């Protein structure tokens, strides 16, 4: 069984700094595999371990994305395909999905594509569904349990207050939520071996056909949010502090 897992290299949002004008300092910012994608990789590797086959790590990003790819390889990826797009050429979500779908078509004979519920930096959560549309494949979203017999994929999905079991024929695309599993920590040996595994580089331009969807969607600005909170701490015994807090809430008019 050939499984493609979609992995995004994301800026570490907790470490990201703003410059004096309030824009994020992305140049040289620390990156890592998007946190939720670790659950995607874990699920793909688990399915491979159970059913045999390969896990192909597929990433779209700049040269810095090699780090995320290696992290995914250390978790058990068999090989990797890196769609190289410099920041200036970074497509919108639809363009990203189109290029990933094109890359999957090139890989050929893919049984299952696994994505996560969203990226930790933008959290748009749409690329998996869009890839499925471009490939005209069934898509099961937000799976918390994934099983396959090589013919069909069956997932449990908790959504809208209901748990559903959904089933689709392979090939298919599935997105997993982080409840699905606990990602493994690779051993030092696995990290070292992963560093030597081949990564195939594919320039993004080579994937863009005449049907590339140019939607004119652009990020106009990114600015830091200012959180102005009162940050008042009430002290005293629990009873005293609680009374002061109750008083403050009454004054705020939120009771």
């Amino acid at each position, binding site marked *: 069984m050939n499984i493609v897992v979609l992995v995004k290299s994301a800026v570490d*949002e*907790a470490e*990201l700094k703003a410059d004096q004008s309030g824009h994020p300092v992305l140049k040289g910012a620390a990156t890592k595999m998007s946190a*939720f994608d670790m659950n995607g990789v874990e699920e793909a590797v688990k399915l491979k371990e159970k059913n045999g086959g390969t896990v192909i790590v597929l990433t779209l990003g700049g040269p810095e994305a090699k780090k995320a790819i290696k992290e995914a390889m250390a978790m058990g990826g068999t090989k990797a395909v890196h769609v190289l797009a410099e920041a200036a050429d970074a497509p*919108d979500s*639809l363009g990203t999905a189109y290029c990933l779908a094109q890359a999957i078509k090139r890989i050929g004979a893919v049984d299952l594509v696994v994505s996560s*519920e*969203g990226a930790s*930096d933008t959290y*748009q*959560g*749409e*690329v998996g*569904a*869009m890839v499925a*549309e*471009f490939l005209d*494949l*069934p*898509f*099961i*979203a937000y799976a918390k349990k994934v099983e396959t017999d090589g013919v069909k994929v069956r997932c449990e999905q908790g*959504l*809208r*207050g*209901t*748990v*559903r079991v*959904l*089933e*689709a*024929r392979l090939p298919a695309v599935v997105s997993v939520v982080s409840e699905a599993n606990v990602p493994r920590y690779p051993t030092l040996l696995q990290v070292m071996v992963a560093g030597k595994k081949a990564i195939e580089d594919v320039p993004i331009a080579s994937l863009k056909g005449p049907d590339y*969807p140019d*939607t*004119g*969607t*652009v*990020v*106009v*600005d*990114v*600015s*830091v*949010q200012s*959180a102005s*909170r009162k940050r*008042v*701490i*009430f*002290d005293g015994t*629990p*009873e005293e*502090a*609680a*009374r002061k*807090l*109750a008083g403050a*809430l009454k004054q*705020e008019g*939120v009771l």
Partner: protein
Amino acid sequence: MTGAVLSYSESPDLAGEVAAAGQEVAKMLGAEAVSLELDEVSPGLLTANKVVLVKGELPLEAIADSAAAGILELVKARGFGALLIAETRFGTIVAAKVAARLRVGSLGKGKKLRVDEGRLVIERDVYGGRFTATVASRLPCVAVVQAGAYEAADASPGPAESVAVTVGEPKVAITQTKQGQQGEAGIKSALKIVSAGRGFARKEDLVIAQDLASALGASLGCSRPLSSDLGWMGEEAHIGLTGAYVHPQLYVAIGISGQLQHVAGIKDSKVIVAINKDAHAPIFQVADYGIVGDLYEVVPALTKALKQG
């Protein structure tokens, strides 16, 4: 003239908000605002818009495939200026599918929609809610409207027009359905929320948070570990980046450390209260009022103080 601005909500609780967003965008474009309903018009729908009921032979709302296909059939026949979908997980998938099928821009989930030089512009949280991205797309395009970003119009719907569409058999089949926890929209529109985190030692102790919630008339939510790792509460109660974005008047975080992922979902709250035994917990940085102390002592004392008025 620009095609109609369509709004759609899978959750009846958010239909009024997304309809209001649709109306605002329609006004900016000089276009008609239309509220879409799939399968049936939900009772108590708050929208001043014209309502178009989209009906297929198979239930459209059962599966994102069919919902997207139903909307697509309508849009193909009539065109559209923009499609606004209320923020739910289901809605996010429908938005992605429609955008991909039509090859139009998808702005993602955000607020403060506006029209600028013929483009639709949205403001959305990025980098764990620490930054705002302003994103623009050519029309027509698709956007997901964040819960709480618009006030639901207090109005009764215009006359409903029913449109029958033909959609194929979905590629995904539902083989089993069981009732889960409370619907996700409930907490999204709550005016007061008491939220529990890892500071609680045992599931049974959540009664302390529940007592406070009852005294306040608040809904009970939680941080991710309680729903995902421990399973103490349903995943619909989970507040944060990957769960519900909430915007209550009052948010009380109990035993929640305040990781970025959680804070992303609560920062639109009017007043944030934190109760935590660790004075250095990041939650205090984003709180209006805080008490550093043992939740097992502080919370019952607060419940008592509130009951005494």
